């Protein structure tokens, strides 16, 4: 037995095995090996599975032509005929072929133990020597060592091929400086369309918000009035990417709370109107829109990574991965009593970017004072 186990690479095995090779246990046969009747039964089982697969394919075709495939979504059990009929029958057809084949392998195919010895992965010394000789002969023939001018210009030309790639990458989008110079209001990462005196309007419906209409505990998902231009307000029409950029950067949440619960940040004493405060809706972590507001704690929670901002305390981060407070929009009321912005945001909204000004604006909230 031990002689049989010494493979062709026998020279690499230890000279003497430390423990006597016990060999393989005695082979026991399957019922199908020793009983011709059992084997015939297995044969029938396997072909039945294959037949079932064919039946399923037929049912698939029948369903396709008979059942109402298309816009009828409630044909079978409140689900579409294509979901149930086509999906189930095609799945079963494949499943039966697989099951039959596994059954075939387990019951009827050859059932003998095989031993394959493990060999070292390293090539033999002769092979390694021959390969190295061929390589150095090639280098010698090409003269790459003798003619450094050819070698160096080749390396330089291949290296230069990186330049077109880098230049093309630039086309992936406007650079921050290009975006800032674009010809539309609030262009660039540093600014938004908010301007002094622009009304805060409700998102979707675009109606202005009267400060006296809001009650303590109210939350309004709002946008600047420039997003909803009408003849009356006179803002220019925006469309396409410009509109989407303006909308996504300028989105805000307006909440009203008990004025006594507001801890105004440095220089922000007059940024609220009777307890109404306004913050950017864009998370400073990776820019998800956030409006999960808790009325009693004044916390605004980002659903993406659970960054939590305290809207009664300059939008301070109280939990989560966000590194910066939520930018606050200074609010005022116009002569008709509607909420307006005192100015654009005093800092860029949204996540941090490379060129962002890193100066400390000194209002990171109560915990940092």
């Amino acid at each position, binding site marked *: 037995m031990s002689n049989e186990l010494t493979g062709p690479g026998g020279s690499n095995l230890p000279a003497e095995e430390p423990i006597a090779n016990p060999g393989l246990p005695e082979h*026991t*046969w*399957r*019922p199908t*090996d*020793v*009983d011709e009747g059992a084997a015939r039964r297995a044969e029938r089982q396997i072909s039945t599975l294959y037949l079932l697969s064919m039946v399923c394919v037929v049912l698939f075709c029948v369903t396709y032509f008979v059942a109402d495939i298309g816009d009828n*979504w*409630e044909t079978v059990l*409140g*689900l*579409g005929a294509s*979901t149930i009929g086509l999906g189930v029958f095609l799945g079963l057809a494949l499943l039966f072929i697989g099951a039959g084949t*596994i059954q075939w392998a*387990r*019951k009827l195919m050859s*059932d003998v133990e095989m031993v394959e010895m493990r060999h070292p992965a390293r090539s033999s010394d002769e092979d390694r020597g021959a390969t190295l000789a061929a390589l150095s002969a090639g280098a010698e023939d090409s003269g790459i060592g003798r003619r450094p001018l050819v070698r160096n210009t080749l390396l330089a030309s291949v290296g230069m091929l990186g330049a077109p790639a880098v230049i093309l990458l630039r086309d992936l989008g406007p650079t921050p400086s290009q975006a800032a110079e674009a010809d539309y209001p609030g262009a660039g990462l540093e600014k938004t369309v908010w301007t002094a005196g622009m009304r805060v309007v409700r*998102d*979707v*419906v675009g109606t202005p*918000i*009267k400060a*006296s*209409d*809001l*009650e303590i*505990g*109210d*939350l*309004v*998902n709002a946008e600047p009035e420039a997003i909803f231009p009408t003849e009356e307000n006179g803002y220019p029409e925006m469309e396409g990417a410009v509109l989407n950029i303006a909308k996504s950067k300028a989105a805000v949440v307006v*909440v009203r709370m008990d004025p006594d619960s507001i801890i105004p940040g440095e220089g922000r004493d007059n940024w609220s109107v009777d307890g109404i405060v306004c913050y950017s809706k864009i998370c400073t972590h990776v820019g998800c*829109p*956030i*409006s*999960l*507001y*808790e*009325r*009693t*704690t004044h*916390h605004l*929670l980002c*659903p993406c990574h*659970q960054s*939590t901002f305290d809207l009664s305390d300059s939008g301070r981060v109280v*939990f989560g991965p966000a590194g910066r407070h939520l930018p606050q929009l200074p609010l005022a009321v116009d002569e008709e009593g509607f909420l307006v912005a005192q100015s654009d945001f005093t800092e860029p909204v949204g996540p941090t970017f490379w060129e962002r000004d890193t100066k400390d604006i000194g209002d990171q909230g109560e915990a940092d004072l």
Partner: protein
Amino acid sequence: MRILNLTAGRLSRHRRGPLAGVLLLLLGLLTAGGLWTAVMAPAQAEKTQDLASQVEEGRKLFLVGCSTCHGTNGEGITTDRGNNLGPSLVGVGAAAVDFQVGTGRMPMAQPGAQAPRKDVAYTEEETAALAAYVATLGPGPAIPDESDYSLQGLDSEAQEAAIVRGGQIFLTNCTACHNFEGSGGAMPRGGYAPKIRGVEPKYIYEALLTGPQNMPSFSNGNLTPEEKRDVIAYLGTLDDAAAVGGFGMGGLGPVAEGMFAWVLGIGTLVGFAVWIAAHTTRSNRKKVEA
């Protein structure tokens, strides 16, 4: 007849006299006053009486069932650590009581981050009495009428437009917490935004008005009554929408659905792998060499 005629004649003679106008005015006042006293006043008094007794009944129920946390006058109770055992109910209005008690959220079984919906503890009359009492504590939103949240009276085109607008308002204001399908979602510190599908329109309207627990409110100055009505109409259409994607699994979102696919799909594959690699039945008999 003669006497009558005589009397009428005498009266008629005085009809332009200086006292006639005054007499007529007195007569008119007396008739109007008498009619008022006889017919209108008792009804009014009864109503006042009814409201007073309802408020009184509500106060009694409040003292037994609510005052432990909300204080004997609904002023709220603050704990030693500055938290609220129960918030002040001054100015929450009848709508808040109808929502909280009518959905079984109040009385709470135990204080905690969430007041879950459960079996209702009070009858409709008792809830109405509690609402009437709490409404006397301070001005607040009243219980909405069905006409506030029903699309009836609009033609089908206007109804469709209202539902579309309601959908946009819902996606902007509600989905952050309540999920795109209205299935609800997790909130900080063990709380959650409840599922709002299949909730009675009145309770959705009241929740919007009053902002239960940690939910911000959407008062009429924030979302107009029509906008609230549209949101409710949109939610109603969600229930009738066909499941074009197959099993919705409660619309709990990609994480829950992904988990389902992984557990079911990989579980099935593991089952097949076990079957393929399992030991086959062995026989004791030896193979007869031919």
